[in-house]
């Protein structure tokens, strides 16, 4: 069986890689917050990375699956930020196995035989695995176009993906990542005075961080209502990507948790394999 060796919560601001390369005033802060994730990733030595994200109206536009999984052999991106261009190998065999398992568990997940990655995958990968040849399995959650899946449903999806990984043939080491903000408005009425983005619900950001620290997944799911996600901004649904990821291992406090309040997002890692940390 395969097993999950590490988990990550990771932001995906599309400008971060360029800011770091060009010496933006936040470059050092950005690098320092991603660094513990990269170190944990390298220590975990995963063969595959299950990456939970929400396409930003790039691949999914006319058709909007609630959940989807990429089963292609490779993919390029970022389709919406060409300056970040990179080709990524995908683990088609494991993706097919997970897809089949999810269907048998009554999750009607769309199967993507062609995948175009956007910045939500490529920008964080720049920091998490800049050079690693890890095979990706992209899993998509509709976090923007209502109706959204419920937090409870996303948690159940994460648990079903865990079953799928643990029933997969071989002895592969699998890392999982959930990407997104907890409170973020992009281009809408609740942006801040000095940016095209904003953090409409800093209190909710703090609340999610607190629940992560205490590993209170039950309460996080209960409090992640549609209304709460909307109050958190038009990208507030991205917390669902984290909840899918959190469903893939037994609740425990993160080994690393940090925040950038001005962006409404957090960085987290969990080492889940004793052998990986020895």
């Amino acid at each position, binding site marked *: 069986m395969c097993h999950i060796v590490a988990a990550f919560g990771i932001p995906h601001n599309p400008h971060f890689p360029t800011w770091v390369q060009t010496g933006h005033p936040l470059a050092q802060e950005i690098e320092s917050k991603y660094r513990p994730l990269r170190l944990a990733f390298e220590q975990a030595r995963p063969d595959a990375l299950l990456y939970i994200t929400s396409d*930003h109206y790039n691949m999914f536009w006319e058709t909007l699956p609630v959940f989807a999984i990429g089963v292609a052999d490779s993919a390029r991106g970022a389709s919406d930020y060409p300056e970040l261009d990179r080709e990524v190998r995908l683990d088609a065999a494991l993706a097919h196995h997970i897809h089949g398992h999810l269907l048998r568990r009554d999750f009607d997940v769309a199967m993507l035989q062609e995948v175009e990655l956007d910045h939500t995958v490529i920008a964080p990968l720049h920091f998490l695995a800049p050079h690693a040849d890890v095979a990706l399995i992209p899993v998509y959650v509709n976090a923007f176009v209502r109706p959204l899946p419920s937090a409870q449903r996303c948690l159940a999806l994460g648990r079903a993906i865990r079953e799928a990984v643990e029933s997969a043939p071989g002895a592969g080491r699998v890392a999982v990542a959930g990407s997104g903000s907890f409170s973020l*408005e992009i*281009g809408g*009425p609740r*942006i801040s005075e000095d940016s*095209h983005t904003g953090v409409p619900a800093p*209190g*909710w950001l703090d609340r999610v961080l607190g629940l992560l620290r205490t590993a209170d997944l039950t309460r996080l799911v209960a409090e992640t209502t549609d209304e709460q996600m909307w109050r958190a901004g*038009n*990208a507030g649904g991205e917390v669902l990507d984290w909840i899918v990821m959190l469903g893939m291992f037994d609740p425990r406090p993160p080994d690393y948790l940090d925040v950038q309040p001005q962006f409404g997002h957090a960085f987290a890692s969990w080492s889940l394999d004793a052998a990986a940390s020895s």
Partner: protein
Amino acid sequence: MNKLCRRVVHDPALREALAQDPEPVLRGFAPPLSKAEIEALVTGDVGTLSRAGCNHFLLHQLGRWGLFGLDLPEYAQRIRAAHSDERRRTGPEPD
């Protein structure tokens, strides 16, 4: 409108054409844009387009790509001005 904004992200030739001479491009766009939408676009009136229900993830791309006299700070200022009444009404996030 949403289709136009999305294509702006993925179609460099469209961006170039809009930067050169936007009105004919907008008049020939498919699906067709209304007269009011075209007028709002060429004047960079994203406040009106926002209030008409455009998707903000997509609408802000006009500022990102510097179209219709916009950049991101100008986009932000116009959106905030268009929604200042709502912000006053709703106030800060409740505890």
